[in-house]
């Protein structure tokens, strides 16, 4: 059941109507049922691995809490954490990566002349497994670290993991944020409702009007037998906007729906294409994942506490695994490695960049900022080429074509893409310059004009959108 389907509308409206009529505990029970239905609409069998891993996590967290209360040695808690890690990562590894590693190993052995039969499995990847695995892991790790208390109610925990707005594509919620909201009675304010509706309309606009219109253009270039430099440039920039509008549109809808029920989700995107360097980019793009990787992987590896070389190693390893999290394919690994390298290089160059920044006069600060934003955007776009490419051969071919970036430039297609993304670019420029992230609410407009603008946005969503496409991040 995709957010951009009519089935979702038929699902969410009665769910909201019923939800408002119920008291707190009944609301939670009802949301568990509704979320199970939502998830089972893909495939009812997906519920079993989810139920299995959450049960293990719940039990392990409870045991860790009891162990801490009894003053038992930390090794005991570590054991429960290991059980939780092995269960969650084992399920993720089995469903998502088994075939990838089996095929890669087979190819590697074949290349050195060893024909070892390594069978692959006919497995359906449960939707959203990467998201809910990380979410559940954050709970047991936080309990292990003593940062939060384990909940006594299994159903509250189950709901925190299963809650349908974030289940299949995030944002990845920490237990400290969402579980607390599940456990406490929620007060829905009129501000939340208005804000939620604004987010939903804006999210659908980004997804249906921008991302879905760019998708066929991008697909055509990435499925073409060969492309010119100009076509590569248009394809990659169009994909940069497609994936941003697709994913952030989904996130906005998820956050909006959650707000309508009194829940607050974390911010997942903060004008990522205005980032001035790789580190800044990861504080703006998919924030719930990058902060998860920072807190649970990078810091666990030692973070920047050791030598400079160890910091570089940790950055590379974190981004490599972050890339692999996106999908079981070598281009995602390459994309992760690329971003890890950018972070390392940026860290190396930071003193130089700071010196240059300090020497620049007040009048040149604007252009210097623009140069940094533009440079980072270009670097990000090249990363999207690695991410979107259908094969490594295509990566090589498209990269080579960039030696002549204006050759056979498809001006008409570029103009069409520009018109499609213009509303987003305009809104985000104002957001960036004014520092008001809630600019999309258009609260600065007189109310009649605001209403008319929302009417036009809704018209664009319902009647001018392209044929509905699945969300890119659903595959992860």
């Amino acid at each position, binding site marked *: 059941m995709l957010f951009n*389907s*009519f*089935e979702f509308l*038929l699902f969410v409206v009665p769910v909201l109507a019923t939800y408002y009529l119920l008291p707190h505990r009944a609301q939670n029970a009802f949301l568990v049922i509704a979320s199970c239905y939502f998830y089972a609409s893909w495939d009812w069998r997906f519920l079993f691995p989810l139920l299995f891993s959450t049960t293990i996590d719940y039990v392990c967290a409870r045991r860790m809490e009891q162990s801490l209360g009894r003053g038992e040695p930390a090794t005991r808690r570590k054991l429960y954490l290991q059980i939780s890690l092995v269960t969650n990562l084992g399920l993720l590894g089995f469903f998502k990566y088994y075939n990838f590693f089996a095929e890669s190993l087979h190819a590697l052995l074949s290349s050195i002349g060893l024909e070892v039969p390594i069978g692959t499995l006919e497995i359906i990847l449960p939707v959203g497994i990467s998201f809910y695995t990380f979410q559940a892991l954050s709970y047991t790790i936080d309990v292990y670290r003593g940062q939060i208390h384990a909940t006594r109610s299994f159903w509250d925990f189950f709901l925190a993991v299963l809650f349908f707005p974030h289940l299949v594509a995030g944002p990845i919620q920490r237990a400290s944020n969402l579980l607390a909201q599940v456990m406490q009675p929620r007060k829905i304010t*009129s501000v939340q409702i208005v804000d939620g509706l604004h987010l939903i309309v804006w999210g659908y606009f980004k997804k249906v009007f921008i991302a879905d219109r760019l998708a066929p253009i991008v697909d055509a270039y990435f499925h073409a037998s060969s492309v010119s430099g100009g076509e590569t440039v248009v394809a990659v920039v169009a994909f940069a906007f497609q994936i941003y509008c697709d994913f952030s549109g989904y996130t906005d809808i998820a956050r909006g729906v959650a707000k309508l029920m009194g829940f607050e989700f974390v911010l997942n995107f903060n004008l990522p294409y205005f980032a001035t360097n790789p580190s800044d980019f990861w504080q703006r793009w998919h924030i719930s994942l990058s902060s998860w990787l920072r807190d649970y992987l990078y810091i666990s590896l030692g973070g920047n506490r050791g030598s400079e070389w160890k910091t570089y190693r940790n950055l590379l390893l974190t981004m490599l695994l972050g890339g692999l999290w996106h999908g079981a394919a070598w281009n995602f690994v390459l994309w992760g490695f690329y971003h890890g390298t950018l972070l390392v290089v940026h860290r190396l160059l930071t003193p130089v960049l700071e010196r240059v920044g300090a020497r620049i006069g007040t009048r040149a600060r604007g252009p210097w900022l623009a140069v940094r934003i533009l440079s980072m955007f270009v670097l990000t776009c090249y990363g999207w080429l690695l991410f979107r490419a259908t094969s490594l051969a295509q990566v090589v071919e498209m990269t080579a074509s960039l030696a002549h970036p204006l050759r056979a430039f498809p001006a008409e297609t570029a103009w069409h893409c520009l018109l499609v993304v213009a509303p987003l670019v305009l809104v985000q420029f104002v957001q960036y310059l004014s520092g008001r992230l809630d600019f999309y609410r258009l609260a600065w407009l007189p*109310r*009649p004009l*605001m*209403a*008319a*603008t*929302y*009417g*036009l946005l*809704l*018209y*664009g969503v*319902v*009647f*001018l959108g392209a044929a509905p496409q699945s969300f890119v991040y659903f595959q992860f």
Partner: protein
Amino acid sequence: MRSRLLIDRTRFGQAASATLFAVVALLAMEAASRLDDHWNHGAPLWGSYDFERLFTFDGRVVRGVPHAQYAKWSLNSVGMRGPEPAAAPGIPRAVVYGASESFGIYESDGKEFPRVMQERLRADTGLGQFEVLNAGVPGMRVGSGTEYIEWLGQRFQPRVVVIYPTPTHYIGVSRPLCGRPARAASSASDVKPSSRLLAKLTDRIKESLPRSLLTMARKGAIAWATRGTQALDRVPPSSLEAFKADLDCAVQAVRRIGATPVLVTHANRFAAPPAADEAMWLTGWRMQYPELREAGFIDLEQRANALVREVAQQADVELVDAASELTGRAELFADHAHFNDAGAQRMGNLLARRVAALLKP
């Protein structure tokens, strides 16, 4: 008491403000809808804009309005779908006389079967200028357009007239219509919404609604439409007698203008008996004629097609048995009986083969 009144006032104010907001947003959507139609289809900004604007009733027959345009449909200077007929005299022509199946509802522009037929005939007969005119008028009953056939004869002198009748248009008809002025049979597209936004929204909901829910809603609407009445299991013989008489009449009208008539049996998507997963399409068909039960449509088609074959034999008319060739092949239809691109291609080829044989000296 005073504070309570203040709270009530605040709530009233909020409700009024929200209502006003919604009204302005809806008005903006209506305006956007009209601008969208204007830019993309040349629709007028004011006034009604619906499928009916393509056709007019001249007091005797319903015919296309010259140069009319609605959404993807546009008519030429003689009120027909398709390119302009050649002005030069002596151009060899065929005419397809029928209803919405011939006019083309779901096919991509230029893929309706009369156009396919023309392309095929031009390629196969070597008659490079051969024209096939699409004289299909949605809702047209075969007997009520004889004056239209006469006009076609005077204006275009076709060599062949292909008659593709729609049997369901005779549901509720008990007397032949031949020679009598008549409005087109009602169809779903006759509905005239005052708001373009509402019309688009209705279409979008229909497109997006899961089939099971749409069928459920349709069944509810049918039950409502037939409340307090007894739905028919079969169409009474009088309706089929009227259909047969009108077929005869149309054949005679074609012969009077000096053209060769070709009768075509009516094809639909349903095998007999229909598969269980096809039931929703039957319900969709019944939406247009709630008074006839679903099974009655299959029965009507079979009886009517038997009559088409009978008339063809009795009147010594060429017959194209499209029903035998295409009925039951759901992949060729976009709904119960209207073709999709693949179906129109098959139908066009089928007719072109027979007409090509007729044109050979």
